[in-house]
């Protein structure tokens, strides 16, 4: 073999060896085993430890809060949505992690992140105009925090889980769909779905309610109605005295110009000299008849057909 060919051959071998070494060093182990990527990367990604724990983990220590939370409309909101990472909280409490702020939610803005009025929010989602709301319930200080009256874990103090709320036909007026107001005077066409207003079925109660102290309110102020579809919704069950106290409890930030206030339920019962067995009484046990509405005519109409009949034949016959 001539010298030049041998040199060329040696050079090529050296270059090949260098190339092979560089490739071996640069290409990680397992690369190309399942595609153009390093096989170990996927297991490494999966091995990270989750930080958010979910409400069931929080419930292991915070039982009372969890029980209240499961009844209320915030049941779909995770603890960590307001309180931050559970794992960081536990680490901080055990002294193995940095201190974390658990109560970043103690501001009006935090409630309004969901419940503030925005044009982009879905129409069925409950939103509030704070100014208007404070004017209605007589709150003087515009910076008053929502949880002064509402318990964030169960903001409406429901007694039964939202999921067990009573199904009810839609109680919105015809104008929900028909923007032309005159439609109300026309007979419904055959086969039209039956929609309701409260007075269509509960005429006596609505008439009586109009005479009583709460007449300026809507029925849905105390019987929270959540629309679930085009035709029906649910009535959430209240009755907890704390529900009444949301408006009637006395606070330094409130004025009693519009709403009669009491200091506390316990104090009120003491003042009346109520016996100890009455200490669990509900407001409506005494005040239903005089302040809210009569109880006659509470019978619930069973089917839409009966309801249509009860309306005096003005509705459709489904």
């Amino acid at each position, binding site marked *: 073999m001539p010298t030049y060919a041998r040199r060329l051959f040696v050079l090529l071998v050296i270059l090949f060896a260098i190339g092979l070494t560089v490739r071996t060093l640069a290409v*990680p182990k397992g*690369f190309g*085993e*399942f*595609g*153009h*990527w*390093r*096989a170990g*990367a*996927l*297991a*490494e*990604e*999966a*091995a*990270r*430890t*989750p*930080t*958010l724990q*979910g409400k069931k983990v929080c419930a292991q220590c915070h039982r009372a809060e969890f029980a209240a939370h499961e009844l209320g409309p*915030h049941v*779909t*909101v*995770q603890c*960590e*949505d307001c309180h*931050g*990472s559970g794992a*960081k909280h536990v680490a901080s409490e055990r002294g193995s992690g940095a201190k974390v702020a658990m109560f970043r939610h103690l501001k009006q*803005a935090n409630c*309004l*992140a*969901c419940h*503030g*009025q*925005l*044009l*982009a*929010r*879905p129409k069925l*989602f409950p939103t509030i105009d704070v100014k208007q709301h404070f004017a209605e319930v007589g709150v003087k200080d515009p910076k008053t925090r929502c949880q002064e009256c509402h318990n964030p874990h169960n903001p409406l103090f429901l007694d039964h889980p939202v999921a067990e709320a009573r199904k009810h036909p839609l109680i919105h007026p015809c104008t929900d769909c028909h923007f032309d107001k005159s439609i109300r005077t026309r007979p419904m066409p055959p086969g039209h779905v039956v929609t309701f207003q409260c007075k269509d079925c509960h005429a006596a109660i609505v008439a009586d309610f109009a005479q009583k102290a709460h007449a300026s309110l809507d029925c849905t102020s105390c019987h929270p109605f959540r629309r679930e579809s085009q035709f029906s919704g649910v009535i959430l069950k209240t009755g907890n005295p704390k529900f009444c106290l949301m408006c009637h409890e006395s606070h330094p930030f409130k004025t009693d110009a519009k709403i009669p206030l009491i200091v506390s339920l316990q104090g009120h019962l003491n003042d009346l000299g109520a016996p100890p067995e009455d200490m669990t009484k509900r407001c409506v046990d005494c005040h239903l008849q005089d302040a809210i509405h009569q109880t006659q005519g509470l019978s619930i109409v069973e089917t839409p057909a009966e309801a249509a009949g009860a309306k005096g034949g003005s509705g459709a016959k489904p």
Partner: protein
Amino acid sequence: MSEEEKKGGTLSLPEPSEKKPGGSLARRDLLKYSAAGLAGLVTLGKIDDLLAESYPTIGGSYHPDEHWWGFVVDLRKCIGCGACVRACKEENSVPDGFFRTWVERYTFLKDGRVLVDSPDGALEGFEPRADVKPEEVTKSFFVPKLCNHCEQSPCVQVCPVGASYQSPDGLVLIDKTHCIGCGYCVQACPYGCRYLNPVTGTADKCTMCYHRISKGLKTACVEACPHGARHYGDLKDPNSEVRRLLNTSRYGVLKPDLGTHPKCFYIGLDEEVV
């Protein structure tokens, strides 16, 4: 015909009839053996391929090959609270000013303008727009954004070192130990879903919380969503929540004309959303 004869003559190949039984390897046998050998090799190769395609089980019970993850966002339900953004930041230690998921607000005006805003990625939710009068607005809604985990992802295609890849379960992921931080993928993503993490110096993006879903947990954003706007699930499973939603709703994907085949589906999507 004559040419064939001529050819045969020149090469002086032995006639098949001249073959002696029990002699050296004949042409027919040679062909037979080579075909069998080839078939054997192909089969071996196939078996090898089949074995190689199955990713080993992760964490004892998770088989990547059995899943094909997808994401569904119900735009009709999003309330723009930003809980998903906060949860994602918390779960994945996303540095300030960067987002793996964020929420945009689209505002349509009577004069035909469409305004889009996302103050700090909606980390603290939204305030009413100060520059728009409510009576000027025709419609408005929120659009949560996250990695679309495209089937044909441009970001994976441009990675010069093979650090971006599509996992066997359909997710677009980054091998952080291998990424050189060149940023090509950040520019290649048509949806703006990638960023260069200033802490690690590598590209970073939504992993669809791979460390959670591979353990059977929900992704951080799905878990945090208080109004059921976000859903993730296995597109291979005919009974999964995402399959049910896709089977019963009208949906779209972002920028379908790019041919990226996103696996993030939007229910109630508007034409103007990009």
